């Protein structure tokens, strides 16, 4: 039988491929994987792929498809072929992310206090004032240790030039880390030998590190802090992750109405009566967190939570108000933040960004809509976006009108040739574009999970990796530097 799932005639198609060099040689760390896949029969590979899909279904790692009467549950599509990050690339990424989160935390502390960054003329005041996610309620807040962003998921992409760029910072409630952990679990069951040979760094201790981070930012003087995860509930698309993280940390998963505030302290209703809560990993947006401070119609939040927080009786992770720093316009100023607060040059560059509020940039953007990617400042999930080269004249005209009407709300970037990874397409391999979301924990110290969520655009040629738009995920293998890093233990868990 002819083997179709082979890399023999795999074409990198002129893009940067994460597994193969342009000469078709395996990249460092990928050799064992490629060898084993080439040695496996198509049937064996496909049955492993199906086995993983069945395992994800059985584990209930699903999201509900909205608008479907029957409430159909689907798994987040998963592709068997992992993305590999070499040790040297990872050292660079890790240093860059630590630097970036350091500057972002200093920026948040500054912007809700003295606003030196604005006073110095580095960020136009109107840019800040028009950022919807700037929260006047947070002015003057002092989170424990001045840490605002405890959990960050930063989206990175690699361009055809081989360099890695920061595409966006997710500083509110970044999700997806549970997929990182579960993808690894099912992959270890499928390819135990390759793990042993390749020196893949472990991700399993994420939940331990997360709990340590939470405990390290508890209000001062609390002996044995009680940590909880606050979820909007089972109808939220990320509910699985909320429950998974609570379970892995061994803490309660609470909903808004499991909590109450009395005398500016937060309590949960338990079978033994009220129990005080010290640290809340909240997976509810600012808007819904406390109807007394934010949206009054919120049924998901806890009345009085913000006041308790302000008094220092409870820690919220992430702090409210962090969204201002991942506003797509403010993003353009992060390199300047790094220079200003840290007196360092950015290790990881931003994608060059045109801020439509600047007249010169706007003129350029309007003249080059067919080449650029245009993004609305406050949208996520791949919505409110124009991908120039893939767009129609009508779409471009619509965006032009929107930009003219509200320039502050738009930025534009060159269309990147995102790197690709071989992906199973029916019965053979094709390259598909990927991004990478590593997770950074920031408490008393900063830690970067050696791995991350690799999202893959499963549609041919597509650059949109979001799950709501036909994206899937892959396991991400950060290869250990043989001298300094610990590889993932061989045994599957």
């Amino acid at each position, binding site marked *: 039988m002819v083997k179709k799932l082979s890399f023999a005639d795999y074409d990198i198609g002129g893009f940067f491929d994460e597994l193969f060099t342009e000469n078709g040689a395996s990249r460092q760390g990928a050799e064992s994987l490629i060898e084993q896949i080439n040695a496996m029969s198509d049937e064996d590979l496909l049955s492993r792929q199906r086995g993983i899909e069945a395992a994800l*279904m*059985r*584990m*209930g790692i699903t999201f509900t498809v*909205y608008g479907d009467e029957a409430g159909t549950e689907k798994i987040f599509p998963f592709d068997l072929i992992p993305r590999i990050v070499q040790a040297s690339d990872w050292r660079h990424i890790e240093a860059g992310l630590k630097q970036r989160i350091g500057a972002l935390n200093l920026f948040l502390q500054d912007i809700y206090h003295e606003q030196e960054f604005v006073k110095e003329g580095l960020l136009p005041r109107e840019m800040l004032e028009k950022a919807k996610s700037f929260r006047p309620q947070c002015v003057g807040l002092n989170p424990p240790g001045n840490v605002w962003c405890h959990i960050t*998921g930063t989206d990175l992409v690699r361009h055809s030039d081989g360099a890695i760029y920061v595409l966006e910072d*997710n500083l*509110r*409630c*970044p*999700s*997806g880390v549970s997929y990182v952990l579960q993808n690894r679990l099912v992959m270890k069951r499928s390819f135990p030998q390759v793990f042993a040979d390749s020196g893949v760094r472990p991700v399993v201790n994420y939940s331990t590190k997360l709990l340590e981070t939470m405990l390290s930012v508890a209000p001062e003087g609390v002996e044995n802090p009680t940590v909880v*995860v606050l979820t*909007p*509930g*089972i*109808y*939220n*698309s*990320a509910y*699985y992750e909320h*429950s*998974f993280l*609570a*379970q892995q940390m061994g*803490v*309660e*998963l*609470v*909903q*808004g*109405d*499991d909590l109450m505030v009395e005398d500016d302290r937060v309590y*949960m*209703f*338990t*079978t*033994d*009566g009220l129990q005080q809560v010290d640290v809340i990993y909240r997976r*509810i*947006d600012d808007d*819904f967190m406390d109807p007394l401070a934010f949206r009054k119609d*919120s*049924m*998901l939040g806890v009345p009085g939570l913000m006041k308790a927080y302000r008094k220092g009786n409870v820690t919220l992770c992430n702090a409210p108000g962090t969204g201002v720093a991942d506003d797509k316009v403010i993003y353009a100023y992060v390199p300047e933040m790094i220079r200003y607060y840290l007196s360092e040059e950015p290790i990881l560059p931003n994608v060059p960004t045109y801020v439509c509020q600047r007249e010169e940039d706007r003129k350029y953007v309007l003249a080059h809509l067919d080449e650029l990617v245009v993004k609305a400042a406050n949208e*996520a*999930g791949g919505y409110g976006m124009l991908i120039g080269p893939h767009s129609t004249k009508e779409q471009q005209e619509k965006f032009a009108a929107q930009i003219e009407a509200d320039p502050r709300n738009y930025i534009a970037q060159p269309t990147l040739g995102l790197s690709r990874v071989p992906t199973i397409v029916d019965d053979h391999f094709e390259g598909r574009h990927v991004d990478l979301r590593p997770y950074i924990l920031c408490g008393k110290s900063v830690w970067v999970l050696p791995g991350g969520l690799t999202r893959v655009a499963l549609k041919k040629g597509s650059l949109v990796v*979001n*799950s*709501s738009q036909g994206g899937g995920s892959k396991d991400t293998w950060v290869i250990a530097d043989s001298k300094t890093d610990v590889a993932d233990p061989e045994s599957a868990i």
Partner: protein
Amino acid sequence: MLSRVASSIYWMARYVERAESLARFVDVALTVSLDHMSSQQWEPLIRATGDEEIFEKKYSEYTSENVRQFLTFDVNYQSSMISCLSAARENARTVREAISSESWECLNDYYLFLSQASKRDISYANSDLFTEIKKQSHLFSGIFDSTMSRDKGWYFANIGRFLERADKTSRILDVKYFTLLPQVTDVGTTVDDLLWSAVLRSVSGFEMFRKRFHTLTIERIIDFLMLDDRFPRAINYCIRTAAGSLARVGGPIEASENEPLKLAEALQQKLANATNRTIIGGGVHEFIDSIQTDLNELGTAIRNTYFAKRTQHMPQSHVHSQKQTQIQSQALS
């Protein structure tokens, strides 16, 4: 433990137990109907659920097919096996972090299996299916018991499981006693033996009964199904087990003022004081009726003492909050 979580675990266990009991009842009815060549098996089953009205609105006759469809696959009937499983799984889903992954995966698998099966035609609601349902329930209980620490979560599940079981044993006994024994002179006939052994089989008690008592008499059946403290489906055993777990969960108030504990204690006392003679003398139906009232009161007291905070917020806020969840922006979506 969060009140909401305790409530969900309790109901999760109750629903799994309910689905299993139902599978058992229907399976035995199916077997007996083959021996007995009569369709009289089916109406009492519906009567045991107390939902004759709902049944009669949808179905014209108490045929084997109709009753099996109603009790097994009917997603619109809230106490069918598929509905129970769905409710058990929804409860488990809201407390995944509080139960072991193994338990959750088992229950999820169980649900997916039954959900698939329920899309097939009624001929698949046969003995093979009911055997599989029983097996899956046992598997779930076994996994739950062997992967969960004996702390509040496990105790609340155990309370739910055994209160549900006590309720089901009492119901099947009540209905069967009423239909099978219109006159005391019926005792000792072969038909009677056939049907009473079916009652025992429906609680998986036939073999255990035989070991203990050998021949079937009404007195012994009452001793065995109601008063026995060793058979795990006997009402007395169930109440004692549930009461033991209740004592272990403690609570927000002193034991002397803890309503569920006091009610459980009273119920145990009532069973300890009863004999088959006093029960038959006072009327079996009347006695079972009073037990069911006691069980309901106990359930209400448990809810008020341990779960209450939650129910005050439901249900209006439920629909609203659901909508908000969906429009919340998610960084990953």
